[in-house]
C-alpha cells in the first residue's frame, strides 16, 4: 500500500514538473508545435508530390463558385433553389399523403372500428385506442412521412454536392451582425423542413454559444408541419379580402410574409441573446469550402431516409400516441353535461378573444403538441364539438379534415372566427412552442433542462405578446 502511494506521489510530482516547464515555455507553445508539424509536412509533401501545371480548382468549379456567390445572382439562386426544394416537398407530398391517409384513415380506421364493434369492445376502450391513439398516429405518419421523405433527400443532395457551405458563406454577414454563426443559415433552412432536424443539424457549429443560439431560434423557421396550416388559413381569411382574381396571390404573399417574419424574429432573437444571456462577440467564421462533388444519388436517398426521416418520424409517433389518447379523453370525459375540453374552452375563451384567438385554438395548441400537422384537425373537431354543428365530423375526440377549403372556412366562421382570428392564428402558428419532438430533440442536443425550457416558453410568450398587440391595434382601428 505504501509503495503504491509512493508511486502516486511520484506521478503527481511529474505533473508539477511539467507544470513548471510550462511557465518557462510561455504562451506560444501550441503555435510553435503546429508550425513545426506543418514544416515537416511541407518537406515530406515536396518530396513525394510532383505536380506540373497543377490546377487547384477545375474551370467549372471556378465558374460555378463565381456564379453562386456573385453579388447579383448569389441570393436569387439561393432563394430559387430553396423555394424549389419547398415547392417540390409540398407539391410532391400531396399524392403520397392522400394515399397514406386514404389507407390508414379512410379504410383502416373504419375497419378497426368495425372489428372492435363486432368483438363487443366497450366504447371507452375502443375510442381511447382507435379514435385516440391509432388515429393520431395514423395522422402523423400520413402527413409527416411524405414531405420528410422528399425534403431530406433533396436537402442532403444539395449538402453533398457542396452547395450548402456556399449558402453559409453568402449569408454569414447577416448572422455576424446578429452575433451568430453563418452556418446558422443552414440550420435555419433545414428548419423549414423540420425543426427537430434543424436542431440536430446545429451540430455543425463548433462554438457552444453560437450552437445554442441556432438551436433556440430554429423554431422560428416555419416547418413543413406549419406550411399547410398557413396556406389553408391564408386562403380562407386573407385571400377572401382581395378580389377573386388576386386571391391566390394575396394569400401566397401572406404566407411568404409569415415565413419572412420568422427569419426576422430568428435574427432579432439571435441578436438579443448574443447581447444578453449568451453574450459574446461574433466569433470566428473560419469555414472550409469543400470542392463540388457529384452526389451519389441512390445512396443519398437511402441514407437520408435512414438517418433523418426515420429518426424524426419515430420520435413524432412516440409522442403522437399518448397525445391522441389525451385528445380523445378531454373530449369524452364528461363532468355533468360538459366535456373537459368544453370546460377548458369556456374558461379560457374570454382571455383568448382578448388577444384575438379563441379557447379552441388554445386547447388545440396544447393537446396537439406532438406535431403541428394535427393542429388543424384538432381545431376542426373541437369547433364542431363546441358549436354543436350537425352533419360534420365523426364524433367527439375524432380528428378530421375536409377536402374543401370553403367548407372548412364555413366551420371556422361558425365557430366565431374573424379575419383577426385568421391573422393571429397564422402568427401564433409561427410563434409558439416547438412541437414535442423538437423539444425532446433540444433536450437531447443541449443536455440542459434550463435551455430546453427557455426554448419552449420564450416563443409562447413572444407569440402571445404579438397576438395581443395585433388584436388591440385591430380593435383600435
Amino acid at each position, binding site marked *: 500500500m505504501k509503495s503504491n502511494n509512493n*508511486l*502516486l506521489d*511520484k*506521478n*503527481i510530482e*511529474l*505533473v508539477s*514538473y*511539467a507544470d513548471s*516547464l*510550462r511557465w*518557462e*515555455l510561455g504562451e506560444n*507553445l*501550441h503555435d*510553435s*508545435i*503546429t508550425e*513545426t*508539424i*506543418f*514544416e*515537416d*509536412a*511541407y518537406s*515530406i*509533401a515536396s*518530396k*513525394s*508530390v*510532383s*505536380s*506540373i*501545371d*497543377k*490546377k*487547384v*480548382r*477545375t474551370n467549372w468549379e471556378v465558374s460555378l463558385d463565381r456564379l453562386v456567390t456573385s453579388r447579383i445572382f448569389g441570393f436569387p439562386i439561393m432563394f430559387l433553389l430553396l423555394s424549389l426544394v419547398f415547392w417540390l416537398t409540398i407539391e410532391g407530398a400531396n399524392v403520397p399523403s392522400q394515399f397514406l391517409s386514404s389507407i390508414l384513415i379512410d379504410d383502416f380506421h373504419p375497419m378497426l372500428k368495425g372489428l372492435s364493434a363486432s368483438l363487443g369492445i366497450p366504447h371507452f376502450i375502443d375510442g381511447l385506442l382507435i379514435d385516440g391513439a391509432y388515429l393520431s398516429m395514423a395522422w402523423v405518419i400520413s402527413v409527416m412521412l411524405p414531405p420528410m421523405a422528399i425534403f431530406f433527400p433533396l436537402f*442532403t443532395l444539395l*449538402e*453533398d*454536392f457542396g452547395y*450548402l*457551405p456556399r449558402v453559409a458563406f453568402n449569408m454569414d454577414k447577416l448572422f455576424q451582425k446578429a452575433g451568430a454563426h453563418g452556418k446558422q443559415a443552414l440550420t435555419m433552412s433545414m428548419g423549414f423542413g423540420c425543426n427537430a432536424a434543424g436542431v440536430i443539424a446545429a*451540430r*455543425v457549429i*463548433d462554438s457552444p454559444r453560437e450552437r445554442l443560439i441556432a438551436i433556440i431560434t430554429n423554431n422560428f423557421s416555419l416547418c413543413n408541419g406549419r406550411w399547410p396550416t398557413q396556406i389553408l388559413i391564408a386562403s380562407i381569411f386573407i385571400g377572401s379580402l382581395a378580389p377573386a382574381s388576386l386571391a391566390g396571390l394575396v394569400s401566397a404573399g401572406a404566407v411568404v410574409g409569415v415565413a419572412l417574419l420568422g427569419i426576422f424574429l430568428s435574427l432579432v432573437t439571435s441578436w438579443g441573446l448574443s447581447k444578453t444571456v449568451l453574450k459574446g462577440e461574433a466569433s470566428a467564421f473560419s*469555414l*472550409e469550402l*469543400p*470542392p463540388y*462533388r457529384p*452526389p*451519389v444519388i441512390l*445512396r443519398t436517398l*437511402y*441514407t437520408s431516409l*435512414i*438517418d433523418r426521416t426515420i429518426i424524426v418520424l419515430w420520435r413524432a409517433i412516440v409522442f403522437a400516441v399518448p397525445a391522441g389518447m389525451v385528445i380523445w379523453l378531454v373530449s369524452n370525459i364528461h363532468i355533468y353535461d360538459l366535456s373537459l375540453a368544453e370546460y377548458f374552452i369556456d374558461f379560457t375563451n374570454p382571455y383568448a378573444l382578448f388577444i384575438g384567438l379563441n379557447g379552441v385554438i388554445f386547447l388545440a395548441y396544447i393537446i396537439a403538441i406532438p406535431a403541428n400537422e394535427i393542429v388543424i384537425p384538432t381545431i376542426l373537431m373541437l369547433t364542431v364539438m363546441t358549436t354543436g354543428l350537425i352533419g360534420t365530423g365523426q364524433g367527439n375526440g375524432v380528428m378530421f379534415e375536409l377536402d374543401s377549403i370553403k367548407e372548412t372556412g364555413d366551420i371556422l366562421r361558425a365557430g366565431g372566427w374573424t379575419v383577426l382570428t385568421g391573422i393571429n392564428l397564422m402568427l401564433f402558428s409561427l410563434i409558439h412552442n416547438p412541437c414535442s419532438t423538437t423539444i425532446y430533440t433540444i433536450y437531447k442536443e443541449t443536455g440542459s433542462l434550463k435551455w430546453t425550457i427557455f426554448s419552449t416558453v420564450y416563443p409562447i410568450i413572444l407569440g402571445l405578446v404579438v397576438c395581443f398587440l395585433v388584436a388591440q391595434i385591430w380593435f383600435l382601428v
Partner: protein
Amino acid sequence: MQNKNINSDCVNCPVHNVANLVKLGVDMEGFNYVVALAGNPNTGKSTIFNNLTGLRQHTGNWPGKTVSRAEGGYEFKDNKFKIVDLPGTYSLLSTSTDEEVARNFILFGQPDVTVIVVDSTKLERNLNLVLQILEITDRAVVSLNLIDEATRKNIKINERELSKQLGIPVVPTSARSRTGMDELLNYIHQVATGEYVCKPYRIKGYSKKINKSIDELSKRIITLFPDLPNARWVAIRLLEGDQTIIDAVKSGEIGSISVSTSNSISEAV
C-alpha cells in the same frame, strides 16, 4: 522476419487494449482486431467506412459531420475486424470534443491499425493530422483517397516515396469508385498481424527550447512508465495542459498503455 518469429512467439497477436476499449464503449466480443478510421473532414472517410463494412452511414460533404462514433465489422482472410469511425478532425491538439474523442481512442484503445484517410488533392494540409497520429501510434495505414480527383487536377503523388518517408503503407484509393479497396484491406491485415512492420516518421523540427523540455520530461516519464510506447508525445500533451493525460499520469492509468505485447519496432529490431 525469421528473427522476429523467434523473438516474439506472438506475431499474430492483436495489440489493442481490451480493457481500455471496453471503457471506451467498444465491445470486442467475436473480433480479432480493431481498426480505427481517422481523417480530416471531407476526405471521404465515411465512404471508405461504408465500403469496408457495407453499412450505409451518411457521408456529408460538410465538415464535422460524424459527431457520434460509428462502428462496423468485416471479415478478411479468416480474421474478423472491428472498425471504428472516429470524428473527422483537422488536428488532434485541441480541446474540442471531437478531437478529444479521436485522440483518446487512438491513445488508450491502442487500435491494431489506424487507417488515416487523406485527401490527395490537399496532401500537405492533411499530413498535419497524419504526423500527429504517427506520434501516438506505430501502426497506421494511409489511404490516399480521392486519387482520381488529384489526377484530374494534375497532381501526381509518388506513393512509394511517401510510404518511405512516413514509414507506413500508403494506398491510393477512390472510395467513390471503390478502387484500391482490396489493397487497403490487404495492408490493414498485414499491419494488424505484424507482417508489415511500420517505422513511423517522428516529428523532428521542434525549437531547441521546446525540444529540451520534451527531452527532460519524457526521460522522467520513461522512468516511471518504462513500457510506454510514446513517451515524447505524452510529454508534449503534458506541456500543452491536456487534462485527460494529466489525470491519466496522476492516477498511473497511463501505464496501462504498454508495448509489452506488441511487436513494434523496438522489439522487432
